[in-house]
């Protein structure tokens, strides 16, 4: 049977290198073609996983413990599918966005390719050391993308981002070293029974280090300091990639570690702590988003807030009945998917509005409703998901999380979710309201190419339709 797993990693590596050699013009076309291919590969993999459960692939015929195993289960397939689905429209968008910025575009395709290869490899890795390697690669590619346009602001943001991401991966690596010291293995499959059998205090320390490192990379409150300047300062297609996908990669690892590897040793207290940080992120992030005067910073702080929802999954799923835990787990993963699609659309829309008006303040986008209604419509649709209103993917996620919170009688998380939802409505409508205001006569306005607008709408619609087809995603997630 044809195995798409290695090709999902090789394909972006190949087109990234070729794009570097051939320059942005041909590189961009090649990237789009390969991304279409990758999306089909991910779809094939999804069908295989649904039909036959978890899939393993031994790289070069050498399996663990000597060689490297690739593994795809429901969760990793969902993430792979999500990644390719988001990157493809963004590639079209980027081609239109970078017109006239040949210099930025020169490095955009290679860096994006390496980023994508690292991310796909991360989702397919089945040992903690390999994961470290992919994590490091991912971080470096992402930092490169933030610094893409150059200039003092982006470089400072990139340096800060670099520092955070290196710190995060070092903490993670230290944890891996400790695990290896105790058990002499780095394979997820091999480690799991060992940890379940006997876990000395060192293992708890390792777990804490690994999780802390990943939390830093996910920008969970109070480690979010690096995110707004990096995501808000980067060019719009990059912001979209980072906010929609890169932070989800480290969150994916937290999920893996928490519910799989360290499941025997995690405690309800730790889960409540994670939830509390998530609640802090929701409230503080939304509050700060509401205070922003610049469009992309608002969207970036919204990411800080939305990451918080993801962490509510831990107190809702840890130590609860199987039914509640499942509902919370499904809600959390749906939130990852919904937020990924919506935030990509939102950043892309913000970039389009800024391009059209030539101003990056929120006060500058008056009149957008009449001039580029399609983009604003896409922004609003994405906003519906961010606010968690029906019939969006964000709503389906929130429904499941609320249900889990009610069933486990943890009403405090309900309050957080409801207040967070209202705050997010406040900041989304802060933008929409401005867009409906009449235009100043003096304002100049640039028409947008079609390829800058339609990919945004596509992403936004996907986040909305997810609310109606959530059951398909869940059936893939549950495939084992």
């Amino acid at each position, binding site marked *: 049977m044809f195995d798409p797993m290695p090709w999902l990693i090789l394909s972006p590596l190949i087109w990234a290198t070729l794009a570097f050699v051939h320059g942005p013009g041909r590189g961009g076309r090649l990237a789009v073609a390969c991304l279409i291919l990758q999306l089909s590969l991910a779809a094939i993999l999804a069908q295989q996983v649904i039909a036959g459960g978890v899939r393993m692939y031994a790289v070069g015929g050498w399996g663990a413990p000597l060689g490297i195993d690739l593994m795809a289960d429901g969760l990793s397939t969902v993430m792979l599918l999500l990644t390719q689905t988001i990157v493809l429209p963004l590639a079209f968008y980027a081609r239109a966005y970078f017109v006239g910025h040949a210099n930025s575009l020169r490095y955009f395709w290679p860096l994006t390719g390496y980023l994508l290869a690292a991310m796909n490899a991360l989702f397919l890795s089945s040992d903690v050391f390999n994961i470290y390697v992919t994590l490091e690669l991912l971080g470096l590619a992402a930092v490169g993308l933030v610094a893409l346009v150059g200039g003092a602001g982006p470089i400072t943001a990139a340096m800060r981002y670099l520092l955070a991401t290196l710190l995060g991966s070092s903490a993670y690596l230290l944890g891996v070293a400790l695990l290896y010291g105790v058990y002499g293995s780095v394979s997820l499959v091999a480690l799991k029974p060992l940890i379940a059998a006997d876990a000395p205090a060192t293992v708890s320390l390792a777990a804490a280090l690994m999780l802390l490192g990943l939390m830093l990379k996910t920008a969970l409150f109070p480690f979010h300091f690096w995110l707004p300047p990096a995501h808000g300062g980067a060019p719009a297609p990059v912001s979209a990639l980072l906010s929609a996908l890169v932070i989800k990669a480290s969150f994916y690892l937290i999920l893996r570690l928490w519910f799989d590897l360290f499941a025997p040793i995690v405690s309800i207290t730790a889960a409540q702590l994670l939830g509390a940080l998530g609640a802090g992120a929701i409230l503080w992030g939304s509050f700060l988003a509401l205070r922003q005067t610049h469009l992309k910073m608002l969207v970036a702080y919204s990411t800080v807030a939305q990451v918080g929802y993801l962490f509510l999954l831990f107190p809702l799923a840890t130590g609860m009945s199987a039914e509640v835990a499942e509902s919370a787990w*499904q809600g959390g993963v749906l939130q990852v998917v919904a937020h990924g699609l919506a935030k990509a659309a939102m950043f892309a829309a913000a970039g389009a509005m800024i391009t059209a008006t030539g101003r990056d303040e929120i006060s500058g986008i008056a009149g957008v*409703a*009449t001039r580029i*209604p399609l983009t604003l*419509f896409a922004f609003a649709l994405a906003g*519906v998901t961010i*606010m968690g*209103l*029906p*019939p969006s993917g964000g709503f*389906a996620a929130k*429904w*499941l999380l*609320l*249900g889990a919170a*009610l*069933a486990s009688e943890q009403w405090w998380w*309900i309050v957080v979710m*409801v207040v967070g*939802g*209202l705050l997010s*409505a406040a900041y989304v*409508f802060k933008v929409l*309201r401005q867009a*409906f*205001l*009449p235009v100043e006569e003096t304002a100049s306005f640039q028409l947008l190419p079609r390829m800058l607008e339609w990919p945004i709408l596509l992403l936004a619609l996907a986040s909305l339709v997810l*609310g*109606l087809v*959530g*059951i398909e995603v*869940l059936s893939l997630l549950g495939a084992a």
Partner: protein
Amino acid sequence: MNFNETLPLLVLLSSLLPGLIIFALPDERHGLRSLINMVGSTLQLLLIVYMLRGVMHGEEYIYHFTILPGLDLVFKADALAMLFVPLSAALWFLTTLYAIGYLEGSPHRNRFFGFFSLCVTATIGVAMAGNLFTFFVFYELLTLSTYPLVVHRGTEQAMRAGQVYLTYTLGGGALLLVGIVWLYGLAGQVEFTHGGVLAVLWPEYTSQLRVIFFLLIAGLGVKAALVPLHGWLPLAMVAPAPVSALLHAVAVVKAGVFGIVRVVYDVYGVEFSQSLHLLMPLAVMASVTIIWGSLRALFQDDLKRRLAYSTISQVSYIALGVAIFGPMATVGGVVHLVHQGIMKITLFFCAGNYAETLGVHKISEMDGVGRRMPWTTAAFTVGAFGMIGLPPLAGFISKWYLGLGALEAQMPWVIAILLASSLLNAAYFLPVLYRAWFQPRTEAWPEEQIPMQNGRETAWLLLVPPLATAVATMLVGLFASSTLSPLTWAKMIAAREYLYWMP
């Protein structure tokens, strides 16, 4: 999927698709846009007529679609839905005609009509929702699709009204969501069923059920404008007249109160609600709203604001009818869902005509409009008399049954409320009529935009809709006992909610 399953979807699509197409049309394509609107609207009416016949003959129209495990979107055309759906569709038809005339020459019309169609789709969705989840989906969609209509003019005042509107409705929506999720946790997925479905949870979950009821009513009460949750409604008056007309007659406030009807009758069950002592607080809240709204209406000089407070008061008749235990009150409340709609939309159409034709916005400017615009004023008079409850108009039928219901339930104080409210209605409507018909005009009109032509007081498109609804106000009252009247339909609904009662 057979035809009976697709029919509810087709009804939704017949207003959704025109909306989406209109968004995509350029603003200048007036003719095509109006055509699409009218085709969609007519098609919807035809489909509904077909469904009405079916429902009368015992056909079932149910559509299921699973979204998440244990979570279905359900559309169901039951008797209660088929009271609300035709009302929405018919009034959408008239309001679209009216809006085409009203907005002639103003900018951003494709946006307006697009959201207008979405708003109607949401209302029809609310009406046909077969369970609370589906109801909620469309309830929130209604909020989102009406916001752009409220802020349509883009003035500072409109933006502020929009903000208040959102704050109230999204806040209410959040409460409603928590209530619904909680209920799903307790009872699982339950469809709206005559007589309610929650009685099985008694007595174990009594206190939880009370809290949930409170959450649901608070969430729905925002849109139904129950005092003290009514603050958004008078502000939302800045919207263009067709929007106000639709908002007050069918869309927003009706969605709220329709939700209350559903919760009491088809989720909790009226008998079970009564046994949990939930109805009395609701009755008191509704009564306070009736009196408070009328009192505030007395002191408004702005015609649309007076009508807005009047809506607050009148919509609570429906809530009151629901809250009084007994089939007669149910008939009164449920039938008022339709009656209030056609009366109030008449009044708003007329208010829009005065503003659009003569620039008259305030009651103090209305001296002598009756002579300048006799047809509009006649329609206004019918609407106002209906509101006051003069026989044989629509409002009288509602009040009559409410009164009978109050007696049946041995709640004589409700009669006092009804009398007081009718007096107050007279007190705030009769002076308007007096000025319009009997005061002579001494000065020029504030801003005469549409001159008198060949004895025609204003544009045709502005004149026909209020006349049509005024005639309807008289017909539903005069022919209340015919088999096709809303009253007969309401009696059929009551008969299904109270198992022991024969009409």
